[in-house]
């Protein structure tokens, strides 16, 4: 009996060590400058730097996990990782399945880009990434929506003529348009679609949400969040007040 109790305590104790919080953060790794895989094969980008800083402030031990965009929400709710930081805009539809912290990127514009200035974004073919707020928006306009699994494929579709225009987060398109030597041009006005980008969490994970919320709030307060946005998105990017 004594050995049994000892063994039970030992198991309980080690189990206690095992649960010393490691927070696994899931990201897509294909959405520069938000998140990407750098040349060393590691997750990099604005969200990597921000996430590491948030974990430091919340005193969490964090690791990064790559996951396809398509299955990023299902894998969160089934517990493969504990948080999503993948440029995921806060919107109602997603809030039915997961919960978000307060935003760590202010509400930002979505924009159309195309190979020629007279591309028809209202009645033509528009490319967008599957399961994004942009894809839902295009579906509501008169345009024909073609969806792709990765943001890069939406751009490739425009370049090879499969689609007339691409509709995506403006901050994602900016470097591509600027570096295309005038090949890609903006079409029309920017469109405001979302409430900003937040950390996605399981609805039952309120404790983690509070920790992240507090860390984000403290970064907003001391201005370090705006500094980081300026570093990764350039001067023109929208900042927090």
């Amino acid at each position, binding site marked *: 009996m004594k050995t049994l109790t000892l063994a039970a305590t030992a198991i309980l104790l080690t189990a206690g060590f*095992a649960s010393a919080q490691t927070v696994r953060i899931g990201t897509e790794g294909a959405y520069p400058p938000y998140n990407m895989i*750098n040349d*060393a094969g590691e997750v990099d980008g604005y969200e990597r730097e921000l996430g590491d800083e948030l974990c430091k402030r919340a005193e969490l031990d964090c690791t990064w996990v790559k996951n396809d965009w398509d299955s990023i929400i299902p894998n969160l709710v089934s*517990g493969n990782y504990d948080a999503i930081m993948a440029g995921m805009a806060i919107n109602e539809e997603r809030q039915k399945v997961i919960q978000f912290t307060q935003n760590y990127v202010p509400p930002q514009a979505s924009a159309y880009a195309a190979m020629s200035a007279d591309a028809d974004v209202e009645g033509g073919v528009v490319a967008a990434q599957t399961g994004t707020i942009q894809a839902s928006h295009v579906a509501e306009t008169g345009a024909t929506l073609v969806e792709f699994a990765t943001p890069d494929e939406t751009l*490739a579709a425009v370049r090879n003529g499969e689609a007339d225009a691409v509709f995506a987060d403006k901050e994602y398109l900016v470097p591509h348009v600027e570096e295309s030597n005038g090949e890609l041009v903006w079409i029309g006005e920017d469109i405001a679609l979302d409430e900003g980008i937040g950390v996605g969490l399981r*609805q*039952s994970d309120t404790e983690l949400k509070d920790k992240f919320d507090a860390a984000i709030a403290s970064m907003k307060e001391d201005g370090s969040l705006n500094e980081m946005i300026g570093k990764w998105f350039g001067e023109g990017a929208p900042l927090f007040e």
Partner: protein
Amino acid sequence: MFEFCADPASLEGMQWTMCYLTTGTHMLFYASFGTVLLLLAITAPVALLFGFGGAMASRSGFLPLRWFGKIYTSMVRGIPDIIFFLFVPLALDQAFEWTRHQFLCDSDAPVRQGNDFIVCAAAKLPLSNSAAWVHDVYGIFLAIIAFSIVFGAFAANVLYGAMQAVPRAQLETAEAYGMSQRQVTRRILIPQMWTYALPGLSNLWMILLKATPLLFLLGVEDIVYWARELGSSKTSAFAYPHPDWRLYYFLGILVFYLLMTWLSERVLGRVTRRLSAGQATMAGERQRKAGVA
């Protein structure tokens, strides 16, 4: 890798190419070929074992076992591979975690809470604080099980057919010598069936080879994942910016698979010749005549 790679922006031509092809991500790309080969090396024998079990079960004189064998082969063969590959790893993972939750957790909170599947930290598989490679290995392990179950069912059918194809006269002769049913199976049936099974099995091997890109669906970072990731256009946020190069990467993979097919055909041809020797089949007969002449 090379010393002159320290500042990628200043590189040109040959040096740029050499540095580009030796970045960390490219090394991971090359290593992923190993992942695919490893999957093949483990899956093929395991699937063959599953198939052997399935075939023996289908032939069994014990009715429930026969049902099990028949149901396994017809059910798995009837379900589209892709659905099976999406279903099995997910179901297995949740089954493992659920079981561990019952034993390792003292909380009585339900595992399913709304949309969420929650087990306590100790029941997680792998534990959330284990190293990244443990997670990778676990992912590959689940993939191997899914592949083995699917290809095992096909192999079971091939082996079952091959066992039926062994001439009845051969078995009868063995029985006449006084061998028991088990001895007949072990000494006569199994050694002779391989030559009948080989065409079907080599087909299966080729299909397995071609099915390996399904790994990508299971979230394992295989060659398809890296080809798409590396080939996608890179802005100056990366050290080596380039336009959309997926075409070239996929071309490389295509060549790899063609080479694998060519190699497999040569090896399988050799094995076929070897197994036909001394068999009462047309190929065996031809070999015998050639040997005599």
